[in-house]
């Protein structure tokens, strides 16, 4: 197949960018979307043109590094699939595909399609953990956790921290990401002691990072490659409200 690409090029955070047009021939339907970029980049090197910078690592849909905005959708058209797991058989010969970086004030562009998502790390550092030092654990089976709860916690913990939820949201809200971590730990007995402070601190950090407010449009969950559910946002709202009430009463 032949694919026409319009790709965002931007030298660094200080300059402005623009869409550039490229044509890639001999695209095989078995290629992944990123392998098509590999082919294009090799061609650019041959033409003495600087290759396009994009983030990627595992190429298995698990590290959360890849982050392309493809034809107006984070990670492209398929549901439950990251950019690296998207294959060219999803497209047709002659298609024109527009590729841009995540857009959000809290995710500044570093170069081309690469953005800075360190805000997510700072949110986790503000409370996304159980405070248990190494060596303080009891025997793992002393803590029975019902399968339903364990499965729900696991489903929330499957978030890969890619930021597609933010990219999909017209308010650039990080609620789905934050709610996934808050839910995982709120559902488990290990998370109970810090349940309230966790919700309050993570939401405060999210606001401080410049993410927008959630207006419940649901765009995040629709685009999330790990199908993190909106139920988590509902749970976060409850947790936050509960925590706010009890913290103002002290």
């Amino acid at each position: 197949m032949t694919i026409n690409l319009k790709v965002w090029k931007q030298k660094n955070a200080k300059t402005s960018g623009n869409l550039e047009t490229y044509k890639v021939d001999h695209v095989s339907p078995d290629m992944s979307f990123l392998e098509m970029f590999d082919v294009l980049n090799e061609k650019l090197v041959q033409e003495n043109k600087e290759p396009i910078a994009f983030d990627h690592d595992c190429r298995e849909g698990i590290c959360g590094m890849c982050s392309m905005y493809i034809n107006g959708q984070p990670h492209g058209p398929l549901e439950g699939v990251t950019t690296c797991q998207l294959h060219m058989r999803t497209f047709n010969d002659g298609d024109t595909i527009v590729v841009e970086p995540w857009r959000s004030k809290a995710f500044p562009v570093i170069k081309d399609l690469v953005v800075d998502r360190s805000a997510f790390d700072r949110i986790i550092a503000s409370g996304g953990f159980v405070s248990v030092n190494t060596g303080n654990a009891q025997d793992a089976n002393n803590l029975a956790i019902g399968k339903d709860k364990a499965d729900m916690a696991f489903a929330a913990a499957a978030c890969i921290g890619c930021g597609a939820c933010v990219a999909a949201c017209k308010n650039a809200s990080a609620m789905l990401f934050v709610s996934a971590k808050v839910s995982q730990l709120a559902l488990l007995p290990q998370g109970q002691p810090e349940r309230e402070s966790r919700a309050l601190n993570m939401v405060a950090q999210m606001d401080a990072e410049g993410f927008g407010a959630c207006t419940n449009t649901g765009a995040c969950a629709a685009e999330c490659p790990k199908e993190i559910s909106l139920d988590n946002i509902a749970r976060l709202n409850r947790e936050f409200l509960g925590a706010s009430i009890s913290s103002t009463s002290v």
Partner: protein
Amino acid sequence: MATIKLDAKVPEGPIGEKWTKYKSSVPLVNPANKRSLEIIVVGTGLAGSSAAASLAEMGYKVKTFCFQDSPRRAHSIAAQGGINAAKNYQNDGDSTYRLFYDTIKGGDYRAREGNVHRLAEVSANIIDQCVAQGVPFARDYGGMLRNRSFGGTQVQRTFYAAGQTGQQLLLGAYSALERQIGKGSVVNYSRHEMLDVVKIDGKARGIIARNLITGELERHFGHAVLLCTGGYGNVFYLSTNAMGSNVTAAWKAHKQGALFANPCFTQIHPTCIPVSGDHQSKLTLMSESLRNDGRIWVPKQKDDKRAANDIPEEERDYYLERRYPAFGNLVPRDIASRAAKERCDAGYGVGATKMAVYLDFKSNLINKYGRAEATKLGIENPDLDTLIRLGKEVVKEEYGNLFDMYKQITGEDPYEVPMMIYPAVHYTMGGVWVDYNLMTTVPGLYCLGEANFSDHGANRLGASALMQGLSDGYFVIPYTIGAYLSAEIKTKAIPTDHEAFVEAEKSTRERIEKLINIKGKQSPESFHKRLGKIMWEKCGMARSEKGLKEAIAEIQALKKEFWSDLRVLGDIDGFNPELDKAGRVADFIELGELMCVDALDRNESCGGHFREEYQEDGGEAMRDDENYMYVSAWEHKGESQWELHKEELKYENIKIAQRNYK
């Protein structure tokens, strides 16, 4: 330089008491002194994150480095199937000794007893620690933890979280690390690549790192430096490793005097999605846990053109079950891989390229899971469709993400047709040589996780890498580092304008400038591909003296071409993945040569190292304990020059035997 004397420093005493005694006698560092001791941790995978968090909790000042944009994205995140621990929750006869025994035997008697026993001892604590952090392992309805079986064992000791165990374990360690970052006890540097170890008076005292966003070179001091930088499987270009995984940190350490051990011991994993074309950038693993429930077969007839589902039962060759009845589909990886290669080379392979075998879930899906569910639901005489429907639900819960991934990549639905799989490079048992303390031959320089050589001998058992990484980080280094740092409490932080730092930064800069100024015609990627091809063909699943000698010559020629015709576009002082890649490929090329040198030295077949000259009539590997029961530890002596040091292995607690899985 004084000649190196290898001392593994394994404590005296009975095997079961070594670690306990060590822990109660190792010198401690008091809390006030810990605050003035600085530790650099390079790498934030399972080994690095767990080490950094634990050391910071103890009071040390820690800095962490990783080349990805967040510590959470280290390659450990991709581990699928599970983590071993001798908990004996299944009441099936597991014990510390059995895990120790399985690991030594699985490693084909090329691992160090003392280290492996310690690993087995702390394995149970790892599960406790992870559960306490909120890692959502799979559980039964009664709330207890579940286990599955992995290759090379006859007990069920593998803990898991669907096919995403590495992700959940790493997120646990990452959250512990972030907690310390939030407290200010760890300073993290993401998108930073370590490019050299700085030594002062023979001791590791810091690193040179490149800020990958700005291109600036930075100097960082530490009283000790921990390399937790993962494996080097990407030397083969195609592997199951993440794209960025590389040997650079370990290689720079090697050039600074750290011996590199058993470089030729690489693991080829039997169940990966086969190569589909030239564009292929990486290979995808289908977890070993699938061998629990999938049966591996090829048609009995050569060149059988029928679709898999049309080939009747009696015309299928379940070759693993046939050759190894005791372990069947659960033989260790090296054996399963070679058996697949043997069938394909003999012309029985399937798929378009004929370089694949089937991994078939139909019979377990129907007979094991379908029937059990039907019985549970009280359905009498269920029909085939019901069994398939019920079985699918269970399989989906156990392996859903793997089946989805397979479908996404190949376009075929593994619930309906058998998977096609072929062996691929997966893991490196070899790595930086370390003693019992995990210290390399450079004082103050440690190496943890896949980057070291320590616990897996010539072949690693499934679900043991996660165990080792977390054992090293949570439970070993917090003790063993005291042995060194207790003698360093008087050392003040050395200012980074010390000449050793200046010198190291200068030589790092010169190398980067050299790479970018060659201005030749070929991309780093194209050199990497060519190196990978040489390595796979001549130092891959089967090796021979002739092939290895050719490979060495070809790699040396490739190196020359690299340094005269490389093209690196983009700037030196900005974000430039091409430049990062070029540096890594340069190091891979040098490592590739050493791997061939090592493989050539080892005139035996053991574990993942199979020399065609050394096999029995049936094609089984022929180990030579009399002459090769040693760890090969290579000292870098100059360009293409290495000196071999041998660490003799002694087995006092295990009877050495020919590995037998029949």
